[in-house]
């Protein structure tokens, strides 16, 4: 007969109640959100001094998890950047060259004269005059190599050396490249995170994607351009010795030197020839703050760590009277003349900055330089108004669609239609509860997913009801017909939902962004709709049946 054990009933009811509790915060979205913000700000770990006005009280014992709104609903910026990891190879080859030169010079009588051939393919090419000593030279360079600090391939060295005619070609070995790429990516992620955190927006997403890509999503930021200028700048600050002023960008800087233009682009660019090796670099900075110089124009005040302060002190005391250049990303911000030795380790950069520029520069300097440049492959900016419009439109569409289905189900199945409708409402509540619990992100296609789920959720009930109708035709008693209806419809319900679930899983695995949001709501919707159709409606029908004890039912 039509029965269900007490423990099962309790479990079903409990699930529904838990669902309601977890879904509830979403009804008071704005209020709970500001409550969460103020709670977070009041935590002792959060000492940035921000206080958030909180006018809404939300009971602490209740869950306060919310469905995250995706960028397309909240507005914000999305960037996909590729890190040019190869740039790091060149830097390291430059650093290797002095050591290689010294090692080869020690054997000058056998190797002959040595010269570096300029390339930029992450290689170090060295020409030696005595071809017969190539093998010796190869071994000398190999002697400089170090074991790779990687877990995967223990025992491999970081350099490989080959020869081409009279040139030695030094390259990084594959394991070293992999290890280096990994380090570069980790550093880049960390620095981008620090820069975005400095701006202090809510819940930015900063993720590594694949080998060398980084996905950055920042809700609430005005435009992708703003975000791009914040994270796209390498912000490598160096202090370099000035060799001379140059007249144009075509002038040959000479070996060991570089030619950089001035940062100020407005009136006739100036050019400087600088020593390539920096005196002090941004790594030695410990603080940078926006400020004003003695003329009252915006500047950046900085402080070195002890190592940097020492290096800078020695350099300035040896070069009183000559200029040095402050260089940011291959552009000379200013080239002041050293008047006195600067021993304290702090200083001031003044260029032709605006207030915004000096603020942004100090943020960038504090966060540190990116190890390599980035190429932006994809960017999207969604204005907050468009997001709000989408939410409003989606809400209305959901409500209307929902009502239409409720009416249609009632007209088709009468009392049983009402049972199905109750289950349908519970179903939607459960979807929101699950979305809140797993912290999923609701996107515009995600709303479509919910609407689709609402449409399809009744399917399981329809299958059961149609089956009950059929069983009633063969004039069994109502209880038996209901039981058989559920029993026989079960395999179709499961098969149908599992196949749809498979496609949701594939969408989740392959898709990204909005599509992933869609697959999450679709997948969760399938789970909740099967639960509500098989258990919730059944429980309601059983409870009704026990009370009413009808001799005859019409479905």
């Amino acid at each position, binding site marked *: 007969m039509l029965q269900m054990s007490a423990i099962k009933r309790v479990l079903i009811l409990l699930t529904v109640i838990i669902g309601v509790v977890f879904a509830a915060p979403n009804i008071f979205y704005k209020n709970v959100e500001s409550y969460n913000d103020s709670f977070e700000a009041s935590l002792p770990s959060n000492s940035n001094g921000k206080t958030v006005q909180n006018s809404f009280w939300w009971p602490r014992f209740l869950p306060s998890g919310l469905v995250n709104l995706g960028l397309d609903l909240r507005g914000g910026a999305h960037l996909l950047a590729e890190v040019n990891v190869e740039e790091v190879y060149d830097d390291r080859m430059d650093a290797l060259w002095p050591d290689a030169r010294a090692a080869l010079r020690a054997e000058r009588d056998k190797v002959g004269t040595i010269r570096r051939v300029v390339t930029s393919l992450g290689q170090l090419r060295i020409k030696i005059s005595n071809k017969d000593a190539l093998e010796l030279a190869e071994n000398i360079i190999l002697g400089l190599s170090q074991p790779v600090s990687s877990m995967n391939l223990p025992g491999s060295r970081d350099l490989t050396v080959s020869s081409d005619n009279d040139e030695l070609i030094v390259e990084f070995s594959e394991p070293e490249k992999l290890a280096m790429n990994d380090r570069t990516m980790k550093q880049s992620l960390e620095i981008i995170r620090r820069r975005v955190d400095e701006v202090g927006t809510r819940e930015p997403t900063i993720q590594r994607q694949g080998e060398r890509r980084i996905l950055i999503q920042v809700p609430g930021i005005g435009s992708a351009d703003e975000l791009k200028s914040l994270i796209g700048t390498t912000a490598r600050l160096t202090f370099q010795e000035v060799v001379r002023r140059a007249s144009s960008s075509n002038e040959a800087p000479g070996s060991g030197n570089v030619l950089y233009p001035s940062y100020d682009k407005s009136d006739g660019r100036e050019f400087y020839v600088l020593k390539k090796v920096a005196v002090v670099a941004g790594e030695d900075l410990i603080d940078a703050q926006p400020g004003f110089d003695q003329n009252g124009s915006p500047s950046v005040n900085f402080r070195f760590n002890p190592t940097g302060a020492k290096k800078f002190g020695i350099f300035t005391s040896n070069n009183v009277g000559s200029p040095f250049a402050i260089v940011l990303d291959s552009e000379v911000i200013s080239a002041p003349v050293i008047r006195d030795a600067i021993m304290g380790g702090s200083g001031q950069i003044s260029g032709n900055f605006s207030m915004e520029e000096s603020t942004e520069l100090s943020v960038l300097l504090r966060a540190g330089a990116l190890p390599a440049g980035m190429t932006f492959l994809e960017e999207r900016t969604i204005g907050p108004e468009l997001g709000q419009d989408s939410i409003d439109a989606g809400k209305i569409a959901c409500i209307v669609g929902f009502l239409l289905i409720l009416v249609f189900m009632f007209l088709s199945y009468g009392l049983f239609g009402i049972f199905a409708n109750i289950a349908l409402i519970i179903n939607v509540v459960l979807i929101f509860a699950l979305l809140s619990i797993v912290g999923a992100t609701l996107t515009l296609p995600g709303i479509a997913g919910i609407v*689709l789920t609402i449409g399809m959720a009744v399917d399981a009930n329809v299958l059961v009801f149609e089956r009950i*109708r059929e069983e009633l035709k063969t004039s069994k008693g109502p209880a038996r017909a209901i039981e058989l209806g559920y029993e026989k419809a079960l395999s179709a319900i*499961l098969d149908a939902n599992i196949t749809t679930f498979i*496609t949701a899983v*594939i969408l989740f695995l392959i898709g990204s962004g909005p*599509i992933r949001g869609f697959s999450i709501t679709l997948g969760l919707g399938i789970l909740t709709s099967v639960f509500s159709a098989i258990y919730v409606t059944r429980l309601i029908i059983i409870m009704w049946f026990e009370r009413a004890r009808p001799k005859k039912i019409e479905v």
Partner: protein
Amino acid sequence: MRLKLVRSETNFNFFKKWKLWITISLVLIFFSGVSLVVMGLNYGIDFRGGTTIRTESSLDVDVSRYRKVLEPLGLGDISISEVFDPTFRDDQNVTQVRIEAQDGDQSITVQAVLSVREALSLIDPNIKFPLVESVGPKVSGELVTVAIWAIFAAIGAVLFYIWLRFEWQFALGAVAALVHDIFLTMGIFSTIQIKFDLAIIAALLTIVGYSLNDTVVVFDRVRENLRKYKKKPLDEVLNLSINETLSRTLMTSVTTLLALTSLYVLGGDVIRGFVFAMIWGVLVGTYSSVFIAGTILLYLGVKRDWSKRLANSGNQFGDIEA
């Protein structure tokens, strides 16, 4: 009184005119193919690379003036179209500006976007830019690969599942119906030149799920009836099964369509293409699970003796107490 979409006892002969149904489908597939070859798909920037900028203003929009100020910027091919939507307010004038992909892997440069903004702000100071999207050619190429892969993976996975739960003939029938649905959907996207972007791939995969849902329910009943009526000819069993499930097939289609239609009308223009794909998919999917999947099954023939399978794979969920 109950609302009934079909009479409680139907006895349509779905296979009497099977040649006609197959012909209709083949003709539609043929035209879809022609359209795909001749007109192609109107790829969005997700697949083609480039930039779209949505503008919004309270002033009336004159597309030709927009074009006149944007063309001198030297950004290559620019297309501008005004967007109309019933959900817009009266003073909400929206256009979509599309700029072709620039050279290199990059998405559009900051300067290019700024120059467009400045140029348009000059002729309309109230203009706002609620949506700027830019995809570099490198990523768009990869997205195409991923999208194709996703569709094949979905079809493959489902083929495998149905083969496991039923027989290979069922799997082939279901997949034929699926391919039919996807092809016709792409055909209509090509014919009316609706923008085909990443969201549409999600819609296509949902159609895969929905169409299967329908087909599997019919097949489930076929399997049940094959056990029940061991001597009945296959076409009669199929006909009976489709008739028995017809009421459910239509009910579910109608409820889903009710939800989708309200989203289509009220959900705004941003997801309209996406919802259109799904509506079309539900229509085609319902048709194909009745006419295509069954006909293929009839053509392939099915093993009739299911008695031995009762104990194992055919009924593996039978012991779940619900």
